[in-house]
Structures are given as C-alpha cells and as structure tokens.
C-alpha cells in the first residue's frame, strides 16, 4: 500500500506471440498438431522442388500402368503410368492453397459481419444474424456441390465458394465476443474522447478479438481442406490441378481402388486425414489456451 506513484510493481509480463506458441507447445495435442502442420507445409513447399511432377510423362505401355511401389516410383504409378509420389507432393499444394485462401475469405467476411453486428447492434444486427443463421443451418456440402456445378470447375471459383460458405460460425463467435467487449468501459471512454466508430473498432475491438479469430481460423482451415477434397473427389475439382481430392477421384474412376492399387489411393487419403487432424488439434489447443469460456458462450 503506497501513495507514491513512482514505484511500479510489474504485473505479469505482456502476452507475446511467442508465449502463445509456447503454451501450445506445453499442450500435448497442441504440440502434435503444431509438428504435423509444420511438416505438412514443409513437405508441400519443398517436396515438389525436389521431385517435380510431370503430368505429361505417361507410361509407354501397359506394363508401366498401376505399378506397385518400386525403386523408380516410390509410391508406384497411376492408371496412366505416372509417378504417384511426385503427384502426391504436388497435390498437397492445392489442398493447402485452398485451405488457407478460403479461410482468409471466410475470416474476413466472418469477422466483418461479427464485429459490425456486435458493435452496432440494433436492426443491422438482426439482419446480419438472420443471414448468418441461414448459412449456418443450410447444409453447406450440397450447396457447394450445386454452386460448383453452376459456376464451373476452376480453382479460384472453388476457393470462393468454400470461403463464402465457411464464415457463419466465425461471425457468431466474433459477434458474441464483440458484444461483451462493448460493455467494457474503455469503449464509452473512447467515445467520450470523440473517437469515431471506425477508430474504436480498429483500435479497441480488433486487437481484442484477434486471438479468437486466429483460433477459429485454424479450425476453418481443416474444414476448407476437407471441403475441397470432397468437391474434387466427386469430380467437381479443377481438372487442370492435381489435388489429393482429385487423386482419389481418379483412383476411384479408373477402377484402381477395385484393383487393389492401395499405393494410389492410400497416400492422398492419409494425407487429407493428417492435414485435417493437424489443423484441428492445433485449433482446439489454441482455443482452449486462449478462451476457455468462450466456446460455451458462442
């Protein structure tokens, strides 16, 4: 108890990015997720540089088709006699690209709608939440399939479709966080200084909701990757791009699965499983660390 305003007692150190990573590392599931995520990114960036895939390098004759793993083709060959291993490496890029970019779109829309809804409240909130709830209850996979077949099969369209259909959960969670932030007295204080709504949102809302946005974003990545794989598997993928989903599609369509060519469909299947698991573990770990209470509130 001191009246001297000069002597400062330092409270806990400011939370840095590093300490959040550190906390994830402490968490067993978080550590596994982190290791897996880092490996997947590393493989998908470096892999194709070392073992580039040449889609034109089809087999010369029937003897090179659907060969099991051997010293030349570590994961065997596909129905056209092409190398599965280099295809697998190449395909991971599309999965990650779609996962990350679609998530960015979903996050921007979700955060934008969530923050505006929670901050301005009133009629805007009612309208935005009605829209959000519509997208939340509408089964997104059939909608993606429908939109995919309408708007065509190229990667940009696929990314947009997945992004545009993945934001509602984000919006809900961020809205509830914004609503509670709004009650904090630093908001009326900023207002009483004469700050504009835009400034209050930028300086006093976004920094507070950011950790939550990141946590949720990680989970959305897993969903987006799965969505792309599903679309590609049912044949709505970009025909010019190899992804794990499209590998599965061709393995199925060419009858390779029926012929027991496990080296063809197992790698992309396990790849999808691993990548989705990695992001899910990481996301849940981040979420638990950051906001133990919020998950129930949302």
């Amino acid at each position, binding site marked *: *108890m*001191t*009246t001297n*305003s*000069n002597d*400062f*007692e*330092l*409270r806990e150190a*400011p939370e840095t990015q590093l300490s959040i990573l550190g906390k994830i590392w402490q968490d067993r599931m978080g550590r596994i997720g982190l290791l897996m995520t880092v490996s997947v990114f590393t493989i998908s960036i470096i892999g194709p540089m070392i073992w580039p895939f040449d889609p034109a390098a089809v087999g010369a004759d029937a003897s090179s088709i659907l060969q099991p793993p051997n010293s030349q083709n570590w994961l065997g060959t596909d129905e056209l006699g092409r190398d599965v291993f280099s295809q697998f490496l190449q395909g991971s890029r599309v999965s990650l690209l779609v996962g990350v970019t679609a998530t960015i779109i979903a996050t921007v829309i979700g955060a934008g709608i969530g923050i505006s809804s929670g901050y301005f409240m009133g009629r805007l909130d009612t309208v935005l939440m009605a829209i959000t709830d519509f997208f939340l209850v509408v089964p997104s996979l059939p909608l993606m399939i429908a939109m995919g077949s309408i708007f065509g099969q190229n990667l940009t369209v696929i990314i947009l479709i997945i992004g545009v259909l993945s934001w509602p959960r984000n919006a809900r969670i961020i809205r509830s966080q914004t609503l509670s932030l709004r009650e*904090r*007295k*630093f908001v*009326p*204080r*900023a*207002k*009483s*200084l*004469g*700050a*504009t709504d835009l*400034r209050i949102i930028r*300086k*006093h809302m976004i*920094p*507070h909701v950011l950790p939550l946005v990141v946590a949720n974003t990680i989970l959305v990545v897993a969903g987006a990757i799965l969505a792309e794989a599903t679309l590609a598997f049912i044949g709505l993928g970009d025909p010019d791009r190899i992804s794990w989903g499209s590998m599965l599609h061709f393995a199925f369509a060419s009858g390779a699965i029926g012929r027991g060519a496990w080296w063809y469909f197992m790698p992309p299947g396990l790849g999808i499983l691993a990548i989705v698991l990695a992001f899910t573990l990481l996301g849940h770990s981040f979420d638990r660390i950051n906001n133990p209470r919020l998950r129930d509130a949302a």
Partner: protein
Amino acid sequence: MNSVAPILDVNNLTVEYQVKTKGKRGVRIARAVDGVSLKIRPGETLAVVGESGSGKTSIANAIMRLIEPTSGSIMLDGKELTKLAGKELRLARSKFQMIFQDPFESLDPRRTVLDTILESLVVAGIGIDDAEKRKLALEALEKVGLIPAENVGARYTYQLSGGQRQRVAIAAAMILKPHLLVADEPVSMLDVSLRAGILRLMRELSRELQIATLFITHDLSLAWMYADRIAVVYSGRIVEEGHPADLISFPQHPYTKALVSVIPVPEKNIARNRIILSGEIPDPLEIPSGCRFSPRCPKYRALGQPELCISSDPKLESIGDQFVACHFPEKKETK
C-alpha cells in the same frame, strides 16, 4: 467567484429509461433523473452526492452525451450540447471530458500508457506533429505525478495500479484542456490511502486550468473536503444544494440531515444523533407522489404526517445561500 458566469449550465435535465416488463406487454418508463438543474463556474468543483440508484451516473452520462437525455438543456460555453450530433458532437467532445469510476475497466489493457494519452490528441484532431504530441503527452504524465514519464509511458495500462491508472485517465482528459470535467465516482474503486491524492490532484488541476468539475460521489465526507459546492440528489432530484461548510454544519433538508449525521467524525466526545433511515430509495418506476422522500422522512413522521408532504412535490427554493426542496426545512432559529 460568484461574479463569474457559469460555464456549464444544465436546466431541467430529465433522463428516462424504457424498461421491458415481464408479464405485462410493452415497456414502462423509469425516470432516473427528474428535472435537475445545475451550474458550475470555471475552476469550481460541484459535488453531486447521493446513494446508489439516485441517478448520479445517469446525470453524468447525459451531460457527457453518452446517453440521450429525455429533455432539458445542457449549455457548455454557451453552446447547447443536446443539439449537437454526429461529427459536430464528436469534435466538441474534447471540451468535456470524463473520468470513469473503474480504472481497471476504462483503460484498454492492450495499449500502453503513452498510446492511451496520445489517443486523446489524435482523436481531437490536434494538428501537431508526432514528436510534439509525444512531448505533450510526457508533460501530461509528469503533471499527474507519473514519473519518470518515459518509463511509465512505455508500460501497458494493465501493469499499473488503480491509482496510477486513474492518474493516466486524468492526464488523458486534461491534455485536451477541457472546459468541463465529469468524474463519476473517480476514487470509489481505489484503495482508501490513494483517494486523497487523486482528489487533490483533480482539484488542483481544475483550479489551475479553470476547469468546471462535476464530481460525483456517494460519500458526503469526500464532497465536503474536495468540492466548492455540494448538490445532494435523491431519487433523480436535487433536494439540497449549498456550500460544503453550510450544508454540513446546518443541513436544512431531512435527507441531508440524515446523511450528515452518519459522517464519521474523529472527535468521539461530540454528542451526535445518528439518523438511520429505514427503507430504500424509491424504484424509478414508482416514484412516490408528493415529496418523494416522504416514505422515509423522519420529519414527516415527527410532524404527524402532514397532508402537504404527500399532496405536493416540493420545489427547490433558495433559503439564504442554500437551496432546499422541502415543505418544512430546518430553520436556523429553531436550533
């Protein structure tokens, strides 16, 4: 001092809240502030004193235009604040500043002390360069006793104690050279040992910079020590107003008298009649008719429940230097 014109002139301020009621459909009106008028001169501190629920915060927020008053006028510097809106209101805000009750909630924990003070300057659109803004901010920190300013400025607000944070809030308000400072219970969340320092600082600055200060508190003894005038509010209404010495030594309204009677005094041998009020402050949804204090008024009972007290709402009238809203004010001669 009386010759100087007031810089804040509030007339007939009324604040009503719409309260959704269960069962019955629709809303009811809770009148939290009911025709409050007050004036403050430059450099003067007016304390508004009242118990919880009497409408103090509603008065403060309405003057600050954080809530919309239902009716009444708020003149600051001859300008009608209730008529300002949008950008005009935002730009005028630097002239009336507020210190909030809870320094742990009112400063954004994710920003540094320096950022917090700079925000005042940035938001007010003061057209000076960054280096100059920084210099002003550091000076402001020194002025409120947060030294070394460089050192304090680099800290996050959550690293400071409550008293230090409230000093930051004062610095951030004062740097804009406001004409009015509204402080809503600025020390009630602070350790008792820190209260005097904060209130003294506010008073010094308000005198030095000629700021009209509205000091809101539930603690009559703090009002007594740190205000130039005191207005006692009860159930959204000023029931008595006067200079601290007069009001404390000779309260004329039965409510003030009761409040004064329970102020702790160091001299134990002074014979005191502590008046303990029964009941509670009325629900703003159901303000009693006639005098709103009558259900709790000891004098009303002592006088044998005069009809006048429940049939007519007493107006705030001047008696000597004081203003009292009671049909049967204490008279000096009778003492």
